[in-house]
């Protein structure tokens, strides 16, 4: 059959997963992004075990060491802790927060989106109006209000970021579900006598999995950024736990005297976020059977 006879909806990849993966890898940016992320995750997960230095050990006599001095590849920070060890350890938290916040928002957003898309009536409308309402707050706004008003920490920060990011997922899923509900296979499922929950879980969910997947990577990226904003503004992760964001916040103090302290974590954020963004982009293209960039 000709390619163009396939429904062009982005929701439905027409090809087997292996091909999606191949198509994904063929996009150089996406492949590079994936490589970066894998590398980062591995480094952050394993690095601290392999390094000589403990990320938390303070040495007030060896503060602000330049990179490559005294066995510290990236130097030391304002408390004499090994910067490399610290960056990798911080990466664990940043990535973890990114991924957990993503899970929260994908779960909440996916749920709301599917339910609201499936039940068009008052329930669906009400839910989407609520989503619209939440979207009226610029997300940093919402985030900072929440963050400033709760006591900061890994868990609260994660939850807060998750709770400010789910709306876009809900919207995406909602419109995707609405479009899917127009399709005949949903009518077919109804006609077969499937109950609503079966349709939502069995028929709709697998079909929104692809856009959810794309959204997920983009939200991880966003969450890492948001965490850094919150931490930068002093409302995020608390010491001694390091995240890239709060390392940056601490480091800006020494921007003139020890600029690498600020440049490195900033770079890490940029790299990680760019990596996830690239993956998301690549996925979006790869999942789109017409192969057009979205």
């Amino acid at each position, binding site marked *: 059959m000709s390619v163009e006879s396939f429904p062009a909806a982005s929701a439905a990849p027409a090809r087997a997963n292996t091909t999606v993966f191949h198509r994904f890898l063929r996009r150089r940016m996406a492949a590079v992004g994936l490589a970066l992320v894998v590398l980062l995750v591995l480094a952050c997960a394993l690095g601290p075990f392999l390094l000589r230095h403990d990320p938390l050990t303070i040495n007030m006599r060896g503060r602000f060491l330049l990179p490559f001095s005294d066995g510290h590849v990236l130097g030391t920070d304002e408390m004499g802790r090994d910067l490399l060890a610290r960056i990798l350890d911080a990466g664990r938290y940043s990535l973890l927060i990114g991924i957990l916040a993503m899970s929260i928002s994908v779960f909440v957003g996916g749920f709301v989106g599917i339910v609201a898309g499936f039940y068009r009536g008052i329930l669906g409308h009400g839910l989407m109006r609520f989503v619209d309402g939440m979207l009226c707050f610029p997300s940093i706004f919402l985030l900072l209000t929440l963050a400033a008003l709760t006591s900061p920490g890994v868990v609260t920060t994660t939850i807060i970021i998750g709770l400010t990011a789910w709306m876009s997922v809900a919207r995406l899923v909602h419109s995707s579900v609405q479009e899917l509900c127009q399709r005949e296979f949903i009518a077919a499922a109804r006609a077969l006598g499937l109950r609503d929950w079966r349709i939502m879980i069995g028929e709709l969910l697998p079909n929104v999995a692809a856009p959810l997947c794309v959204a997920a990577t983009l939200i991880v990226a966003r969450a890492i950024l948001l965490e850094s904003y919150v931490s930068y503004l002093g409302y995020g992760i608390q010491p001694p736990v390091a995240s890239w964001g709060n390392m940056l916040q601490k480091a800006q103090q020494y921007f003139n005297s020890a600029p690498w302290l600020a440049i490195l974590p900033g770079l890490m954020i940029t790299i990680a976020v760019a990596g996830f963004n690239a993956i998301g982009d690549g996925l979006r*293209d790869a999942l789109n059977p017409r192969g057009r960039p979205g």
Partner: protein
Amino acid sequence: MTTPLLDVSDLTVRFSQDRGKVYAVNGVSYSLARGETLAVVGESGSGKSAHVLAMPGLLGTGRYTGAGAAVEVGGSAVFAGKELIGMPEAELRRLRGSRIGFVFQDPMSSLNPVLTVGEQIAEAITSHGVSPRTAEARALDLLDIVGIPEPRRRARHFPHQFSGGMRQRAMIAIGIACEPALLIADEPTTALDVLVQAQIIDLMKDLRRQLGMAMIWITHDMGVVASIADTVQVMYGGRIMERGPVRAVFHDTRSAYTWGLLNSLPDAEMHAPSLAGRRPRLRQIPGQPPDMTQVPVGDPFAPRNRFATHRCLSETPPLQQVADGAPGHLVAAWYDLPQVLRAVAHRDASPQALTEMGT
């Protein structure tokens, strides 16, 4: 014999995309005389659209774009003495619209939604060096010619304000705006219902007569072919299977694919509206269409052809004049269909056998 308007030889089109190559058109050769109407039929995906769009350099836009799908066009297509393949875009542009007109299938998506219909018709004319004022007047004439009432008012409308049939008429007006020597129509009526389809066909017939243009008309519908074509060309798997005067192809079918196609249509004689008893079945072509991503070997239809020989599977038959057929009736087949059919009928006289040919 005068020189043909269009002379295609060994045209090939390949798409290379992420999942590999698509061998869309595999060596198509034919020529088209001035004023001749050629109908192209064939399986979906057999390269009908690809081969006509490749010549004027229109592959790569419209729904034929795929990101990363590189198009390779090979062979030659000489139009009015000029080679089209490899011609610089600027020169091609001058030909398109002025000497070669187009009508596409989906009249909704083929018209620009934000420009008025009048503008879009006039543009076809101004693009070829006519002043806007003249072009506007001509656009109104054209609307009138294609049978749109109140052209002056209608010209100011946007495509969405037109019905499907009217949009297709507008498309035709664009296609014939510069009185081209060749009009290429890619399934211009498929999206329309029978009544509207009939009107469009009539309109095209009239125009062809008035303007004396040649026409390539791509369709799926054998009925449409019968009603409009001088010559019909049957394609399968990126090749021409059979080609010839419409009567010859319909009544003296030489390709097993054409034969299968014509036979699978319901036949008035077969209708037996009774609840009792077994009703006659249609004569279906068994099997699945070919995979266009494989390098083509042999007769593409061979896997579905019960008359195929070993040679069909391994060697590609050339498109040749049918020995005892009408002039210009060509077929690409190693077998001799009338003979094979006679042999089968002889061996197994029951019509049932023919019905379930190959199953």
